[in-house]
C-alpha cells in the first residue's frame, strides 16, 4: 500500500489546482459571507450553493497539536514523531496539517504560523504544511545561525531505501518434484503418521501434509558447505530490505492452504514484501517485516500462501 495522497473531486479540484501553484484558495458564501474549509458544493452555515473562491495568505495560529511518538498508521512511520496540528486560519476556518521546520519545545498553542507548500514524492501532489511565522523559531534559521544546536532527531530505521522494498517481489523459484518417498520421510521425521499422507491405498493417492510446502525448496548440502549455525546457505528467491539493525528474530508464520499437494507436483515459490513497520520500545527500535510466500503448482494453481514475520532489532 502506498502513502495516501488526496484525490480531488470535481468540487474540490479548484482548491488542489491552486495549491499546486503555491496558492491557498478558500470558498466564501455569497449569501452569508462565511469563509469555510474544506471545499464543498454548499455553504455549511446556510447551505447556499452560491460560492466564490478567494485567495488568502495562509497565515494563522496554532489551535492545537499533538506529537505522535508512535505512527498513527504504518504508512506514516517515516514521519515519526508526527507533529499533527489543527491550524486556525486568519479568515476563521480550521484545517488539518502538520508542523515543520521547528523544534518540539518551541511549539505553543496560539503561536503564529505561515504556510509551507510541500510537493510530495509523486511529483504532482502539493500538501499544505505550516512553519513558525517568526523566522527566528525556524529550525533552518537556527542551524545557520548556530546559536543553539538542535538536538539530533531520533533516527528511524525505516530509511527510504528500506521502505522502497514494500510491495517488491523476489525471483520465482521452482523446487524439485514432490515424491511419495519424500513425503514419507518428512512424516516420519515429524511423527505425523496420518494415513492420508502415508497409505498408498488412499483413494486418489497420498497427499502431502500442509507444512510440507517448503520442503521441495530445501537443497541438501555437504557438511562443509553449511553455515555456522548448521543451515544451508540457500537464498534463491529470498527478498529482504536492508535494515541496519543487528539482530533478526522469527516473529511467526501463518500459512493458508488452498489445494492438495501430491506426488508428481512441482511447486514454484515467490516472495513479496507485504509491509515494514517500526516500533519504538524502551530498549530501542524494532522493525517488523512481513513477507508473503506464494506457492503454486505446475498448473499455476495456488497451493498455499504463507506470511512470515521477521523482527529486526
Amino acid at each position: 500500500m502506498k502513502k495516501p495522497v488526496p484525490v480531488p473531486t470535481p468540487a474540490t479540484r479548484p482548491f488542489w489546482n491552486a495549491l499546486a501553484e503555491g496558492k491557498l484558495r478558500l470558498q466564501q458564501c455569497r449569501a452569508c459571507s462565511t469563509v469555510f474549509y474544506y471545499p464543498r458544493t454548499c455553504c455549511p452555515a446556510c447551505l447556499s450553493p452560491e460560492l466564490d473562491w478567494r485567495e488568502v495568505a495562509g497565515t494563522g495560529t496554532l489551535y492545537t497539536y499533538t506529537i505522535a511518538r508512535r505512527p498513527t498508521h504504518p504508512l506514516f512511520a517515516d514521519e515519526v514523531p508526527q507533529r499533527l496540528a489543527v491550524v486556525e486560519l486568519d479568515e476563521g476556518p480550521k484545517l488539518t496539517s502538520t508542523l515543520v521546520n521547528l523544534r518540539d519545545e518551541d511549539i505553543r498553542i496560539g503561536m503564529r504560523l505561515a504556510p509551507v507548500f510541500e510537493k510530495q514524492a509523486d511529483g504532482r501532489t502539493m500538501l499544505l504544511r505550516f512553519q513558525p511565522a517568526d523566522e527566528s523559531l525556524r529550525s533552518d534559521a537556527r542551524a545557520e545561525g548556530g546559536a543553539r544546536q538542535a538536538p539530533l532527531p531520533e533516527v528511524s530505521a525505516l530509511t527510504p531505501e528500506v521502505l522502497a522494498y514494500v510491495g517488491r517481489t523476489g525471483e520465482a523459484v521452482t523446487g524439485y518434484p514432490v515424491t511419495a518417498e519424500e513425503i514419507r520421510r518428512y512424516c516420519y521425521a515429524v511423527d505425523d503418521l496420518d494415513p492420508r499422507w502415508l497409505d498408498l491405498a488412499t483413494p486418489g493417492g497420498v497427499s502431502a501434509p500442509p507444512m510440507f510446502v517448503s520442503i521441495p525448496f530445501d537443497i541438501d548440502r555437504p557438511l562443509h558447505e553449511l553455515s555456522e549455525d548448521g543451515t544451508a546457505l540457500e537464498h534463491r528467491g529470498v527478498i529482504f530490505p536492508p535494515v541496519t539493525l543487528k539482530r533478526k528474530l522469527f516473529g511467526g508464520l501463518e500459512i493458508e492452504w488452498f489445494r492438495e499437494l501430491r506426488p508428481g507436483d512441482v511447486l514454484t515459490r515467490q516472495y513479496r514484501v507485504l509491509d515494514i513497520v517500526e516500533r519504538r520500545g524502551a530498549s530501542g527500535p524494532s522493525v517488523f517485516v512481513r513477507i508473503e510466500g506464494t506457492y503454486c503448482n505446475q498448473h499455476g494453481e495456488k497451493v498455499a500462501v504463507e506470511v512470515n514475520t521477521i523482527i529486526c532489532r
Partner: protein
Amino acid sequence: MGLRGEAAVVGYVELKPEKKPSGPPLTSIEQWAQLTRLALADAGIDKREVDGIVTSSIAESGMFGPATLAEYMGLELGFAESIDLGGASAAGAVWRAAAAIELGAADVVVCAFPGGPLPSPPEPKPHPFPFGASSAEYGSPQAEFDIPYGNVAQNCGYAQIANRYASRYGYDPRALAKIAVDQRTSACGNPDALFHGKPITIEDVLASPMISDPIHMLEIVMPVAGGAAVVLAGRERAGRLRKRPVWVRGFGERLAFKTPTYAADLLRTPIAEAARRAIAMAGVRHDDLDMVSIYDCYTITVLMTLEDAGFCAKGEGARFVLEHDLSCRGDFPCNTWGGQLSFGQTGMAGGMHHVIDATRQIMGRAGANQVRACDTALVTGNGGIMSEQAVLILQGA
C-alpha cells in the same frame, strides 16, 4: 415530550474479554444469534416474544442487515434499526429501543453488539477499513483533507483535544492518571476484567510510554475480543419478570462533526447538551445519581465528560478527580466494572458494557463491586473523537 420511563432493560450478556480469542471465529450474524440467546436466557424471555432489534452494521451484510438477522434467527419484527454512532451506538440503541417500545412498535427489543473476530474468507480480501475510523473512500473529506497529513485513527485526535484543554485550563497529568488507577481498583474486584489482579499506581501510568503527547499508554483502552447485548421490554412484560427492571427514564444525543479539526469548539463536548437533555427528561438532579458509567476510551474523555455533564465546573475536572474516589468503593462510583480501560475495549460492543455496568448495579447483581443502594445511574456513550455522544438516565424504581 421525551420518554415516559415505561421501557426497561431486563437482561444482558457480557462475554468475557479475550486478548487472544479461544473459540473458533464466528461471523457477525452468528455472534448476534449467540448474544441474543444468552441475553434472552438472562432475562427469562422466550425468543418468540422478540419483535424488535437494534444492530450496528453487520460485516457480512452491508445492506439489509436487520432483515438478514431476522431471517437467520427466525424473528418477525415490528421494529428494526441499524445504528452507526461508533462508541455511542449502544447508548443510542437503548434509547431507540425504549422509544420504539413506548410508541408500541415493539414489546421486546434486543440490542446486540458483536465484538469477536470474524472468520477469514479462503481468498483474502483487502481490509474494509484500511485507515480505521477515517474513511479512505473517494470523495470522503477524511480521505482528502485529513488522512494525507497522517491525521488517522483515534490517538491523535484525543491528544489534540487534551492539549487544547491544557492550554485553556491547565493540565494535571496525575489527575488524568488517577482515573485509570481508580478504575483498575474496581477491575480488581471483577474476575472477568482483562486486567483483573493487576493494580496500578499513578506513577505506573505516568511511567508508561508516551504515545501521543500528552497521552500515555495506560490512559488508552486495549482492544480485545468480546461482545455484549441487552434486552428491553415494556412495562407490562417487564413487570412479570423476576429481576428488577431498569427503566430508561431519559436520554440525550448530540453530534456535529467527524474530525475534531472541524469542531466549532473542541472544549465544549457534545455530551454537555446530551446530558442536559437526559437529566431534564428524567427529572433527576445530579445528587440523585448513585453511580455513573462514563465512556472511557481515554482518560481525557472521562475528565471532560465529568465537567460537561455537570458534575463539576469547567476546568475543575482535575480537582474533582483528585478529591473523589472513583472506584466502586468510593464516594463517586464511576465505571464500577473496571471501565473499558481495565476491562478491555470490545470494539463496537465497548459502549454496551457501560449500559450493562449501570444495569448490573441497579439490579443489585454486581457482587463484590456492588454499590450500596443503587437506584439511579447516568450512562454515557462516545463515538468518533468526542464527536458523537449520547447519555442515558437509568432507574430501578
